[in-house]
Each structure stands twice: as structure tokens, then as C-alpha cells.
């Protein structure tokens, strides 16, 4: 690794309070500072890509590499009124969608342990929560149900329940109004329930 970028990573580790926006400003005059942003978001975005259904590690890395280069090219277009993380998630999301389209491939969902939050969320007021609690929904069953969802529903659920993004952040990432985000989540949950095995369908 280059000495300059290594130095920035060390500085970033020592001074975690340096904001993303400050690093963006620094990157515009010294590209090595961009390494710090890459370090900050690499693992989060790789995990996000996996949740979006990019199942092959090399593909995830390639997509992320392209996403970072695109972000660098468009740094002057970064709007400081929104969080850098939202902007970076947006670029990564769009790159992933382009990759699916160009390879004509379907997302292959692999969900990790964080699915619990979504399962809890699926228990709405009308459901028999005690019955659901007794049933154990396996990760594979949830992943299978996820695969049956349309990509926009899947994206909404991943951002909300796996990436823990707020509605405003989701609005900035998916480039839709906040009202549309809540509608998407509501419909996505309903669609997911109907895709679950019979005993979980509420």
C-alpha cells in the first residue's frame, strides 16, 4: 500500500471523529485520503452487496471497486446535505443493479444472523405472536422467501432490517420519497409473509 494512503488510514484510526465529509474535502486535494473512506466502508458495503444477492466474493469486490472509483469521479457532485454513507450506499446499490442487469443474473440471497429483527417485525398486531415465537424460522427459509421477492422489495427490507437504515437514509439511497419508502416496506413485509412457508404465513 502506498505510504500516503497508509498514513491516512493510521490517522483515521487514531482520530475516528474525522467526519466523512471532512475526508471528502481532503480527498479533493489529495487523492490518498480516499483510502480512509474506502477502509471505513469496505466491509459494510461488501456485506451489503452480499445481502443484495451478489453471491460471489470476486463479484462483490469488483462491484465495490467500481463503486469507489465512480464515487471518486463524482466527488464534486457529493451533496453535503445528505450523509456520505447514504451516497456511497446509493452508488454501490446502483452498481450492483447494473451488474445484475449486465450479467442477466438473479440475486442469490444469503442472509446472516441479523434476520431476527425482520422476523420480529413480521409479527404485526393481528398475528398470533406466541405461535410464531414457538416456530423457528431458519435462515435458509427466510433467504428462500427473500429470493421470491421483487428486487425493490428485497432492497427495502435489506436496508431497513439488515443495514438498519432510517427512512430518510433509505430515501437518499433508493432515490425515492420518504413516503414511498414506508409504502415499500409495508408491501415488502406483506409480500414476504406470503412467501414464507405455510406455518409462518400470518
Amino acid at each position, binding site marked *: 500500500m*502506498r505510504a500516503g494512503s497508509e498514513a491516512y488510514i493510521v490517522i483515521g484510526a487514531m482520530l475516528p471523529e474525522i467526519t466523512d465529509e471532512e475526508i471528502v474535502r481532503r480527498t479533493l486535494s489529495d487523492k490518498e485520503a480516499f*483510502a480512509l473512506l474506502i477502509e471505513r466502508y469496505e466491509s459494510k458495503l461488501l456485506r451489503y452487496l452480499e445481502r443484495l444477492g451478489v453471491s460471489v466474493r470476486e463479484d462483490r469486490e469488483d462491484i465495490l471497486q467500481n463503486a469507489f*472509483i465512480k464515487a471518486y469521479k463524482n466527488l464534486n457532485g457529493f451533496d453535503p446535505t445528505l450523509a456520505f454513507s447514504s451516497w456511497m450506499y446509493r452508488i454501490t446499490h446502483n452498481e450492483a443493479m447494473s451488474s445484475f442487469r449486465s450479467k442477466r443474473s438473479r440475486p442469490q440471497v444469503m442472509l446472516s444472523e441479523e434476520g431476527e429483527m425482520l422476523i420480529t417485525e413480521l409479527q404485526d398486531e393481528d398475528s398470533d405472536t406466541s405461535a410464531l415465537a414457538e416456530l423457528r424460522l431458519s435462515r435458509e427459509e427466510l433467504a428462500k422467501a427473500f429470493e421470491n421477492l421483487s428486487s425493490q422489495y428485497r432492497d427495502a427490507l435489506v436496508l431497513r432490517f439488515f443495514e438498519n437504515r432510517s427512512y430518510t437514509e433509505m430515501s437518499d439511497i433508493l432515490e425515492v420519497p420518504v413516503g414511498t419508502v414506508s409504502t415499500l416496506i409495508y408491501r415488502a413485509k406483506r409480500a414476504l409473509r406470503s412467501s414464507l412457508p405455510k406455518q409462518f404465513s400470518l
Partner: protein
Amino acid sequence: MNTIHHQNQDPLAKRVLGRITDDHVTPRPRWEFLLKNYVFWGLGALAVVCGALAFSATLFEIQNVDWQWYMVTHTDFLSFFLSAAPFLWVSALTLSILVGYWYIRRTAHGYRYPLMMISCGAIILSLSFGGGLHVLGFGEEIEEMLGDHPPFYRPILVEQRSWWVEPEKGLLGGDIENVASGTASLVLRDFSGQSREIDTEDLRDQDLTALTRGETVRIVGAPTTATSSTFHACFVLPWKKENQKNKPSPSDRAATSEQRVGERSEICKNIRSYEKLHASEDGEDE
């Protein structure tokens, strides 16, 4: 989880920075983003202006089309509606609003505004601005200026005139050239520029009002035949709407050779719209 490791084990940051250096990637200048944003806002605003122009032309058409005489010029309301409704302008208005929405949606924060907010905003702006243009009298100019260009479209006033150059259907419109005193005839230059002799024997007081003023008129009469060059007039209607409700003034009455009241001849009673025109006359008299 896929356990195959990437061939390139270098950290991602190193690979990204390496590509940035090798490919000479540089951040695009800020003005490009600003320009794009301004252009999109500008095009969105332009679309709203186009919508306003289309709406003022729509209002002009609605206000100036002869809704009240549809039973004279057309066989039924549907055929009249199809030939008179401002489809072009309503389509242009709709298209402008959609284009405006598309551009505004693509501005820096455009995605944050709900569809309803942008659409309603574009509609309200187009309608209020267009309504203002119409009130100021620009509707007609817009209708004629823009309406002249599409090859498939005729401005409504031109279209409307064409309905009244069909003597074989008993419809004739034009300017009165000469009213011969003491005779029951006049000469009319129709909208196609042809002078025609009009037999006014069957006209009544209401009809004569417009004639004596020398206005542009429309005449409903008995269809001409191949053997007759004279058009037999049964009803005379003023061309301009604002004059339609005018009653004959004393001077108008004095200018006519005699006062004529009562039923018209059998020739007129045979025309398709006789009953309706006659009934509307009675309505005015009451």
C-alpha cells in the same frame, strides 16, 4: 458463504487508488454537476411554461368554440365534440406536465418530492400561469401561432369557419357585402371569398338585427342545389358570441324594410335544425 479467495489479495484501497492513478481518473469538475442541476430545473420550468401556453390555448378553444350551435353544424354532440375538443392542447398540457415531472425528478433533490407534489405543483403553476395568459388575451395568439404549425391541426377559429362554408348542407358564413333596400336579398362574401346572393324572404326580426349592422354572420338555410345559385336563408346568427344576445335596437328596426314575425316557410321547416333554432329564438324573446 463463498470461500474462494480473490486472486488479488491487495487491500481494496490499494487497488482502487492504483486504478485511479493508472487510469488517470480525476474528479469531474463541480461546475458540471451544478450546470446539470440548473439545466434540469430550467427544462422542468420550461415544460411548465409550455403547459401554461397549452392551457391558455385550451381555455381559448373552450370559450370560443360554438357549443351552443353544435346541433346546427353537426349531426350529434359526439361528432361535434370530436371535431371541436382541444385534444391537441390537452395532450400538450399533459405531455408538458409529464416532461416537467421527469426533469424535476432528476434534479439533485428531485427524488425527495412525491409524485403528487411535483405533479400538482406543475399542474397548478401551468393552470394559473396559463389562465393568466388567457385573461390577458394571449390564448388566441398562442392558438393561432402554435396551432398553425402541426400539419394535422387547424386552429379552432379556422376549423370553425370551415363548418360554415358548406352551402350544400345549408350552412354559410361570411361578411355582408350589400343589403339592397326594398328587396328581399343581400350579397354575402363567404369565408372562402366567394360572393353569394342570399334570399332573405324567410328571415325574421331577430335575424335582421345582425344583417343591418353589416357584421360577419352565419346563415342557416335551405341547401343549395346544382341548379340554384341563390342561398335561401332561414336564420341569421351573429358570428361573434358577445352579440348573440343583443336585441334589435330601434334604429336597427327602422333600417329594415318591414317587421317580420311568425312562422317561416315550408322550405325552412324542412331543415334539420329548424325546431331547435326556432325554440332558441322563442327562448330569447321571452
